[in-house]
């Protein structure tokens, strides 16, 4: 592993984490191991493992309240091999900022040995895209702070018993949005476009990506890219959640792949202001791959079981619009007037 030596005065150097070309090149060491208590088939737990593996041992990981804290980090049976600290539900941005600020100040003043240390702060969709949005936005403005905000999106406030969040898909059944005798659809908000919103709103942020753990190598390489490029970065992962989405746990990967293939979850990275689609999304964008109908995805999950044909048609229409009318298909809305 080669290391860069940029002066510490302003920009602290990052670890250079090479891209892993294929499964055989992936490090064997795990930094998120046994000890957690997540549901069977929990994609987010796998994502934590990939994230920690990609970052390596010289890392500090901070985690906001949510399943990946409550179900993941029990006193006396921590799964974390790297230093780990809880942060409040809306504080993933602040946790990263404070940790990096301390490292910078102490290294600059000679109170700590100088060394590039990865700082990753993760949050769920509720903690990140709802409550913690302002703190994440602020963190992404500190362009001389090397930090990665990693948002695992299981599309609900899962840990508190599956309630809708601003990232839940239209119509989803949750304990706060149950279909009833009079109202079939209780959740009418369209899912937030969080990654692109943050990329567009923070043009100095050098790296934003969306990932799906169905493609584990890509997911790890995005983490490694974000940590290497430095400055504040953001990764948004769509994580199927068997409990909240209501499907057999063995299908987590398959459902995640369907989200991509239907065009509901576009995979892209924005590096230094340039958008690049990857995986199946790249072929959707180029026309080489024909999007599957959203019903193939929706009808696999109990949370959409109450949807009527007209709801599915509405859903399909919104996804079509995203690929056919958006300024940057799958990423940035608006059309030129």
């Amino acid at each position: 592993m080669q290391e860069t030596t940029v002066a510490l005065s302003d920009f602290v150097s990052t670890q250079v984490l090479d891209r892993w070309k294929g499964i055989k090149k992936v490090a064997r060491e795990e930094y998120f191991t046994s000890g957690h208590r997540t549901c069977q088939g929990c994609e987010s737990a796998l994502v934590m493992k990939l994230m920690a593996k990609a970052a390596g041992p010289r890392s500090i990981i901070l985690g906001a309240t949510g399943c990946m804290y409550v179900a993941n980090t029990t006193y006396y049976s921590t799964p974390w091999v790297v230093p780990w600290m809880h942060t409040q539900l809306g504080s993933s941005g602040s946790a990263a900022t404070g940790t990096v600020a301390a490292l910078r100040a102490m290294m600059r003043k000679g109170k700590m040995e100088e060394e590039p240390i990865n700082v990753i702060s993760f949050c769920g969709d509720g903690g990140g895209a709802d409550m913690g949005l302002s703190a994440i936005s602020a963190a992404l403005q500190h362009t001389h702070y090397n930090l990665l905000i990693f948002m695992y999106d299981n599309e609900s406030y899962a840990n508190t018993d599956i309630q809708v969040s601003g990232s839940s898909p239209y119509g989803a059944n949750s304990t706060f949005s149950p279909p009833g005798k009079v109202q079939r659809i209780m959740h009418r908000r369209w899912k937030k476009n969080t990654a692109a919103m943050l990329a567009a709103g923070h043009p100095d942020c050098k790296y934003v990506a969306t990932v799906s753990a169905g493609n584990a190598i890509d997911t790890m390489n995005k983490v490694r890219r974000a940590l290497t490029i430095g400055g504040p970065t953001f990764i948004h992962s769509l994580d199927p959640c068997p409990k909240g989405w209501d499907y057999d746990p063995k299908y987590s990967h398959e459902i995640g792949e369907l989200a991509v293939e239907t065009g509901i979850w576009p995979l892209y990275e924005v590096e230094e202001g340039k958008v690049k689609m990857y995986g199946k999304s790249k072929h959707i964008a180029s026309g080489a791959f024909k999007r599957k109908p959203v019903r193939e995805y929706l009808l696999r999950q109990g949370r959409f079981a109450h949807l009527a044909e007209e709801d599915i048609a509405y859903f399909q229409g919104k996804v079509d619009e995203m690929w056919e009318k958006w300024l940057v298909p799958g990423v940035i809305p608006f059309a030129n007037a």
Partner: protein
Amino acid sequence: MNPPKTATAKKVNVAAARAPRGGSEELISGSEAVAHAVRLADVDVITAYPIRPYDTVMQYVSQLIADGEFDCEYIVAESEHSQFEIVKHASAVGARVFCGSSGVGWLYAFEALAVTAGLRLPMVAMVGNRALDDPGAFGVEHNDALAVRDLGWMLAWVATAQEALDTALIAYRVAEDKRVFLPCAISCDGAFLTHSQAIVNVPGQDMVDGFLPPYDRAEKQLHPDNPITIAPQANEDWVMEIRRQSDMAARRARDVIIEAYDDFNAQFGRGGEPFIERYMMEDAEVALVGMGTLAMPVKVAVRKMREQGKKVGFVRVRWFRPFPTIELQEALSGVQAVGVIDRDYSFGSSFFSGVLANDLRSALYPMVNRPGIVSFIAGLGGREVSTDNVIDITNKVLDAASGGDIDDQDTYWIGVRE
């Protein structure tokens, strides 16, 4: 696991406090005095967010940084919640931190304030005391800082700019002592202290270095060389033991504070008695008790009453947490009646008193000859407490002492339009 015995009222060597030594004399406000303390403490991470009146301290801090007089990571956060979360996390990595707020800003950070104490993370914060909205008011009330009184925060109230500077240095030493590891807030009355100038002795760096050791988080530091997990989910299995540890730390804080004042008095030639200030208490028959800049009109009034032959004294509470139970019992043991002046309220509480009066009552309860306690609410929202107000208060206390109409189980609002 027995708690340490509550320390006895160990006397600090105040005699060692003579003329100030070293440093320079400056005409500065309370906020600027705290900014100097922060610079002298070589703080590593500071976060700011605007709200009057505390924010003046950050104006001075940012200027010191801009002028190259002081090196730290200085972050203007996007809310008080983030402001306090950022320094909380910096403290976990081992950085010395400073933060502050006022009024509703302090309450906006409440979640962060709770977890900072819960995690036993040292932090020094300045509260520029301010009335809580609504209705909007910039002036002083103590309810903001008092809101955290049950959470493990140590709370000091200061009366002068000099005391603000000195207490900030003492606060770092106490908060970062591994026997304590608790956050500490220094309350400065809005406007009356934050914005009022006085001559302050600003000590030299070598003096401060001799008094304040570096912050060492040791085996609790979050760092790849020490891969610990901080604040996992504990639940009923362990939460009670963890709370007990905080309780023990809060108990131990007493002795650590006394040690710190001992050293401060010896090294700086000032500092005074920890926990409380006694004013004309030697032969006092009735006493007033209060916190913060209230001391000014109260001391003037006490002198005036003394001229009229009335044996009145004053006890200023300097530390509200840990509460100076022993010192107050001792200081008030000889008086016939006590008048507590609260610059705060506790609606619906026993006798409808203020927070200080309620705590004082429970502290004095075990005394055999406990004095009557008359409770007063005054100076809310920054309203001036005049010397005449204090004389009025004292006359009521004297009346209660001589068995008059004034009821020592009642609370009187002073200087209010009814």
